[in-house]
């Protein structure tokens, strides 16, 4: 809370992303991936962006994390606009991408060290934090191994470790448990909850209904780049009078799109 009101950590206003593409006739056209998305995420909240494949979830995260510029609209963090305060904001956020994007020429420890250096951490702080987080996710044994040698689950955990190294206040997770077995998935959920208890604002995208229902304080449902609804999982169920979030999701995004 700030000044007695709920403290909005992230605010997007009318966020639009259009990409050039070729239409069926082969002519140059534009495709709208995100169409006027306005959201607010409170400090310390776990916020989920739920949608089928191609709904615009990853594009939204990429715009929010300054990896791609919005065609229109703005993103603010704690009142700071990404267009004018990019460097300050980048030091506040941690990003766990959907794909594994480690530097393939570096070891686990070197990948983490590089990230910490890019966030201007001193040598002693880097060493201590890397050790602390690797111990936390039980990966201390692989610190000198090449990242190629790790299993899928280890790589996912390591992506989270890397994003947390510089103690971000906001953590973005893009499909953090995709293609993981249930045990690893639950371990990652536990990790995310612990981050939120520690005061980190979490913004995650998922197409796993259970993940959204279990983890998120509020869920935004996205379809074809548009916000369909936004509320807590419980209230979404009550509003639609449906027994679970999966039914709500299917009802809102169209059963034909399915859940891949």
């Amino acid at each position: 809370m700030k000044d007695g009101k709920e403290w909005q950590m992230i605010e997007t206003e009318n966020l639009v992303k259009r990409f050039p593409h070729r239409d069926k006739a082969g002519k140059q056209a534009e495709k709208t991936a995100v169409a006027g998305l306005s959201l607010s995420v409170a400090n310390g909240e776990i916020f989920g962006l739920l949608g089928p494949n191609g709904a615009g979830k990853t594009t939204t995260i990429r715009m929010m994390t300054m990896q791609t510029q919005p065609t229109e609209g703005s993103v603010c963090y704690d009142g700071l606009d990404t267009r004018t305060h990019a460097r300050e904001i980048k030091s506040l956020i941690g990003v766990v991408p959907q794909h594994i994007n480690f530097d393939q020429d570096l070891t686990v420890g070197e990948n983490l060290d590089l990230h910490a250096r890019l966030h201007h951490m001193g040598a002693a702080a880097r060493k201590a934090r890397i050790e602390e987080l690797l111990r936390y996710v039980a990966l201390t044994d692989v610190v000198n191994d090449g990242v190629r040698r790790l299993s899928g689950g280890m790589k996912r955990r390591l992506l989270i470790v890397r994003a947390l190294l510089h103690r971000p206040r906001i953590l973005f997770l893009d499909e953090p448990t995709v293609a993981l077995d249930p045990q690893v998935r639950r371990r990652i959920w536990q990790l995310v909850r612990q981050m939120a208890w520690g005061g980190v604002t979490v913004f995650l995208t998922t197409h796993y209904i259970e993940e959204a229902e279990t983890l998120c304080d509020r869920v935004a449902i996205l379809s074809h780049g548009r916000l369909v609804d936004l509320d807590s999982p419980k209230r979404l169920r009550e509003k639609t009078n449906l027994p679970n979030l999966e039914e709500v999701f299917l009802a809102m995004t169209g059963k034909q799109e399915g859940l891949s």
Partner: protein
Amino acid sequence: MRNQNFYDVWTVFWRDWIVLRKRLTKFILSRMVAPMLYLVAFGWGLGRSIEVQGGTYLDFIVPGILALNSMNISFNSITPVHAERVYHKSLEEYLIAPIWPDAFVIGKVAAAVLRGLISSSIIVLLALAFGAHFAMTPLFLLVLVLNCVVFAEIGFLAAMKISTFEEMGQVNTYILLPMSFLCGTFFSTHALPDPVRYAIECLPLTHTSLLLRTIGSGGEAPLASLAVLALYALGGYLWSSRAFRRLTK
């Protein structure tokens, strides 16, 4: 902020340095093969029967080999950035980091220059062992550095703009390979027909060859060529910086 910018450059350079350090022996050995073949074929073999500008052909081609080798090494040292951008996506780490965007360009170019200079040092040692004569002065070194900078920047631009590995290979085939042979490396550009010569003399490698040969033989450096190289380096930097910043477009 200036200190932080410098630290960002160092971080980007540090990453490339630790990768190079792991492969240093392999890098050095692999860089000895091509210059050794050039020196044997054109210095000892073909070169024994040729006299150029009152000296041996070996003395004539060593600056050319230095020019083309530093071009190839600095260009190819930076092209893995292409894989980092397109395939491994590890470039995203730099896009989301609170760093000065130009630090990425400068750090990568500096690392490529280092590789170019290591490779050039090997050639200098080999050339001396083969009995070549040339003067190594600070200006000679500056020209080598400028040449590495120019071609590292061209490599950086290719890595930012090109979509596939195949197209990256085509830059080597259509741009670097012709330059390797035509830009005053193995023979003087005066041997070419005038229209071709004028075109070739617009290219940076021609000016590097000319400068290295003139300085190496104890002559006065043509300042216009030095200015051309400096302009290429500056233009390459500005364009590379723009290309990196436009990745988020």
